[in-house]
């Protein structure tokens, strides 16, 4: 397990999962891949299937319909797999907390390894969040 986590910290493949977001966090994630930020330099790549992913980026708060599907998709990922909550919506449901169609925060559905707050978080914040996650994992391994 620890070897795997060590390998994970080298080149992270991410899968993007949208659970009723407003789209903005999602386009900021895509922004990371384009020339200005270009995270592929660091080996971070967006993949098309959750089965290839080392980290799942979840945006948006969850509604009734998305919740079951979300659970299934996260369960399908090969473990160990990090779940990163991006944006205020998935961290705390923001202003949708009182909606009739909203279920609960991401924490209640799956374990979350990193929270990146902001509406939407700037691409720099996302990079910093992932770096912090990697450092925390490496520090835990050393112990």
């Amino acid at each position, binding site marked *: 397990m620890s070897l795997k986590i060590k390998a994970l910290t080298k080149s992270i493949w991410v899968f*993007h*999962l*949208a*659970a*009723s*977001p*407003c*789209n*903005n*966090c*999602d*386009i*900021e994630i*895509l*922004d990371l891949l*384009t*020339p*200005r930020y270009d995270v592929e330099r660091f080996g971070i790549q*967006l*993949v*098309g*299937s*959750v089965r290839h992913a080392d980290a799942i980026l979840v945006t*948006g*708060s969850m*509604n009734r*319909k*998305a919740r079951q*599907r979300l659970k299934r*998709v996260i369960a399908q990922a090969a473990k160990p797999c990090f779940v990163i909550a991006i944006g205020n919506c998935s961290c705390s449901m*923001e*202003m*949708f*907390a*009182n*909606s*009739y*169609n*909203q279920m609960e925060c991401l924490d209640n559905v799956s374990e979350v390894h990193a929270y990146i707050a902001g*509406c*939407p978080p*700037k691409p720099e914040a996302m990079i910093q969040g992932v770096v912090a996650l990697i450092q925390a994992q490496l520090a835990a391994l050393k112990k």
Partner: protein
Amino acid sequence: MTPNRTQIIPIGPYHPLQEEPEFFKLHVEGEKVVKLDIEIGYNHRGIEKLAEGLTYDQVPFLVERVCGICSTSHPFACVNAIEDVGGFDIPERAKYIRTFVGELERIHSHLLWLGLAGHFLGYNTVWMWAWKYREPVLDCFELLTGNRNHYAMFKPGGVRRDFEDEDLPTAMRILDGLERPLLMFAKIAMADPVLQARLKNVGVLTYEDCVELGALGPTSRASGVPWDVRRDHPYAAYDLVEWDVVTTENGDVFDKVVVRVLEMLESVKICKQCLEKLREVRDGIDANYKEIPPGEGIGHHEAPRGEVFHYVRSDGSNRPIRYKIRAPSFMNVPTNNRAVVGYTVSDATITLAAIDPCYCCTERTIVVDADSGKQLMGWKELLRLSQEKTRKLMEKYKSRMDRVWI
């Protein structure tokens, strides 16, 4: 032709094609698409209902979060609707600022779509290029409004922040710098053999289809329907600046690219005129209306994807008692049924994306019995659900009740 020759290809709800979750069922015979089912609802957040719990000053923040890509369109239509209730007028400077923000957003949204369209075609060069030139636009937003997206500039009666004089030359420089890449895109779109081969005569939507289905925005303008609410029903400063409505004739995906590229050039033109005017016009940015009288109001805005329509009803208190949103994708998504059917599966992805759908905006909820077609859940049930949720929240946050607004 026996029915079992038809096969079903499911796309979604979580797929790499688009950012939001939605579900398409393509019924295919061999390579050809014969039927299309669209299922949405993964994004429904009950925004209309939430808006009734907020004050008029808070509603623009909420509707801004309907959709992040065109995050000014909804507040724009929202403030138009609220001002329509009382027949308010706003200062001229605020009008120019609103128009500027709205048009700059059109550039960023169309560039975003152009990039994604390239990505769907497997032509990632276009994606990287388009998004590279989109960054300066976001810089301009950050400079003038303080955030890359979700600018929160609009409030009933004016705008929230003024533009600083010393920032205007930088903004002008960014706009000047945009013209060259946009012209390059126009040339690429016209001449590139890959784009020609993939997009010409694909996903054709005729004039009649557009009129019948009520398609809006670039989707209809690419088929020669010259509808543009900025011209037909002017608001903000659109009647004070010079610009043209762009239309093309063929209605295929290629023409939709052309319309969007040319529209961006028009937007640059409008933005520049606004910046020029902002140097001279200085009559404040906020009319400071305190009371919204009882009554009804409607507001439009020509969003990058088409006309956004908002309706608000007031009873004289500080909150709307009914709020209604109709986003352009709601009208445009059904055109997929005409545009995709009859073409091959490989064309389906780009055709589905050609209307620049925004499912975040389109989401609404209706629960029907599939056999009888009877509506099971109406306004009353939704109200009950909403009250139940409130009760649950109240129990959960009892200790924090004084801080949570319900």
